[in-house]
């Protein structure tokens, strides 16, 4: 079952094409990464999914139904440009946002208690937002995003401006929500975060789908058959016939195999030449490397 299906979604602003026939599906219960450099069209796309704006053309299905005005109540959205009412009290603020999502007063209060208790911040309830530190405000922001138990949680650069402790805290919450069945759309331009968190990604650049799929598949597809070999002693003299040395250190080399399908043969060769191999690992490209390779270092930034 797909929570979200996009088919050839297109959006233009005057002459600028923000989304150029973007298509992808998000399977229920997954953590899905929406990647792209700044200005690639991520936020435009998210605003379409959250019904803030409308696509010019294309099809969007939420839970199998065409996207409509009832769906925002099932979506939790933390925009990149986010904030809170500074003069409002924490409790009022969160319940207000929950009620705008369609919660009754009672439901809102129940959920408020649950989350304040969970983050161990029950005593913040009557504090004004402006009295809180920035990190504390981010927690409140997160709570107000998820308070209505959304089916799909959209996080646009959720970790920007967070210190490492809060980053971990929020990341753990994301995992926990995901375990309970919330599907998560995670939008960022920071690849290392995606690698840690997401199972599936779509990469967009200049409004176009560039790459889509499971993180492990993508890495496999873009691998360059590079292996890291740790050893004791010497490497064979004629190793050049089998592999190109990419990097060489004392007791460790990185090689790119010439005969790409035969890592076993290469290992055998090393052993047969009397090299004492202590470890043999394939080095997969990072998403960052793949990203730069595809985008070519060129983005709108």
């Amino acid at each position, binding site marked *: 079952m797909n929570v979200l299906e996009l088919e050839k979604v297109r959006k233009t602003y005057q002459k600028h094409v923000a989304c150029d026939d973007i298509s992808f599906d998000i399977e229920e219960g997954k953590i899905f990464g929406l990647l792209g450099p700044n200005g690639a069209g991520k936020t435009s796309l998210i605003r379409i999914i959250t019904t803030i*704006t409308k696509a010019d053309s294309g099809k969007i299905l939420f839970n199998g139904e065409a996207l409509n005005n009832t769906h925002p*109540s099932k979506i939790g*959205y*933390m925009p990149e440009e986010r904030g809170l009412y*500074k003069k409002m009290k924490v409790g009022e603020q969160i319940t207000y946002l929950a009620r*705008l*999502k369609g919660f009754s007063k009672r439901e809102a209060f129940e959920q408020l208690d649950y989350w304040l208790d969970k983050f161990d911040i029950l005593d913040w309830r009557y504090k004004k937002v402006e009295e809180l530190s920035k990190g504390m405000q981010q927690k409140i922001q997160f709570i*107000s995003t998820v308070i209505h138990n959304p089916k799909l949680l959209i996080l646009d650069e959720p970790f920007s401006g967070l210190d490492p402790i809060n980053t971990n805290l929020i990341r753990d919450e994301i995992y926990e929500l995901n375990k309970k069945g919330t599907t998560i759309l995670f939008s960022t331009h920071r690849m290392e975060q995606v690698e840690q968190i997401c199972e599936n990604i779509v990469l967009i650049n200049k409004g176009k789908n560039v790459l889509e799929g499971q993180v492990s598949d993508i890495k496999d597809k873009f691998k360059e058959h590079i292996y890291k070999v740790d050893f004791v002693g010497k490497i064979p003299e004629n190793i050049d016939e089998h592999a190109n040395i990419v990097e060489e250190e004392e007791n460790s080399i990185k090689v790119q195999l010439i005969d790409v399908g035969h890592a076993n043969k290469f290992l055998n060769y090393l052993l047969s030449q009397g090299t004492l191999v202590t470890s043999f690992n394939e080095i997969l490209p990072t998403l960052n490397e793949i990203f730069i390779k595809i985008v070519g270092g060129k983005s709108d930034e």
Partner: protein
Amino acid sequence: MNKTWLIIKREYLSRVTKRTFILTTVLTPIGFIIFWVALIFIMSSGVEKKKIALLDPGNTLQISEKGKLRDGMVIYNYPRKDLEELKSNFEDYGYKGILYIPDQNLDSATLTFNIHYYSNDDISITTQESIKKAISSHARKIKMDQLGINETILDKLNTSVELQPKNLDKSKEEVSSSRAYVATALGAIMMFLIYIVIFIYGNMVMRSVMEEKTNRIVEVLISSVRPFQLMLGKIVGVGAVGLTQFAIWGIVFPLLYLGVGFLFSGKLQQLQELTTTSTASNAGDIEDILVIIQELGNFNYGYILAIFLIFFLGGYVLYASLFAAVGAAMGDDWGEGQSLTLVIAIPVIIAFYIGIAVVENPNSSLAVWSSMFPLFSPIVMPARIVFDPPVIQLLMSVVILLITCFFFIWISGRIYRIGILMYGKKTTLKDFALWMFRKD
């Protein structure tokens, strides 16, 4: 609709419970009252009665025959003392000064009459006037006796002229001049109130929109509600705050007025006596005031209030929606929007000046046409309403205003929905036009 209601509630409650709202709502009437009470005290202390010794060795004023001098501000004593002697010790007797009448003639041929005033302080102008008036009216009595005429004969010389405007249009009631006078004042007050409301509460809406934008909460909000609901909720919520404030003042002011009248009744009465006894020409004024009070009762207040409220709300909604659009278009920079707010302020100010002219001449063609034009009518029509404009004009004006209100809300909504998501770019009027026609 439910969500719009939530927004209205938040906008309303967050303002009404704010300390500044409570303070301005409470302090404004208190400030007025303090000002008023202070005024009463200043006035009554300024007119403190002075004791003055009047020396008339030549008996020019014929005090014993013609009666004592009458004056609200000065108490005259008539000690039988020598001027030189009194000069040295008049303060010991509690006199503020000595009024000395030099020996001279006082008869029907006297045109100027000289008196001397000795004292250690400067004599205030009001005291001077008061003394001059008292002596002058006393001299008049003496002269009248000499000429053998009395007040009743003099009164016969006076002819009071009353101008009664007769409107040839049969549908109109005859309007007395005092009614026109009262209507002008009422019209001006209502016009001024609406003018103030448009600026104060329109700006409040604008600031509130900007605050949400600079706080960056707006994108969170519009992922739950339509931008239009947000804008509408804001306009209605802030409008309700304005109505609340006016309702509170509407109740508190009369109560305080009565309270002060009761608490300071002594002082007020004293003041009133002073003004009536000291100035002889006041009798006519009092009559006028009585007529005005009577006229005030002759207006159909239910009708006036209803019409006033329609234009009050219509004007507010129309301009508040424009202010909302401007607020949405403004960036984080306050100064940026100044030129845009000016565009809104200009018609309001023009309407105000037209209103001033209309109060003078409520049935001129300027009055009729400007009260049809929806950007002016909320200010101009209330100025006319007390002059009973034709119902058909009133209806047309209301209908045009309402249609324009809906149109402006719609247009502003379109500008608003785009504007609130725009950051970092300076907005021009051209952008406004583009945004209006841009699709979602």
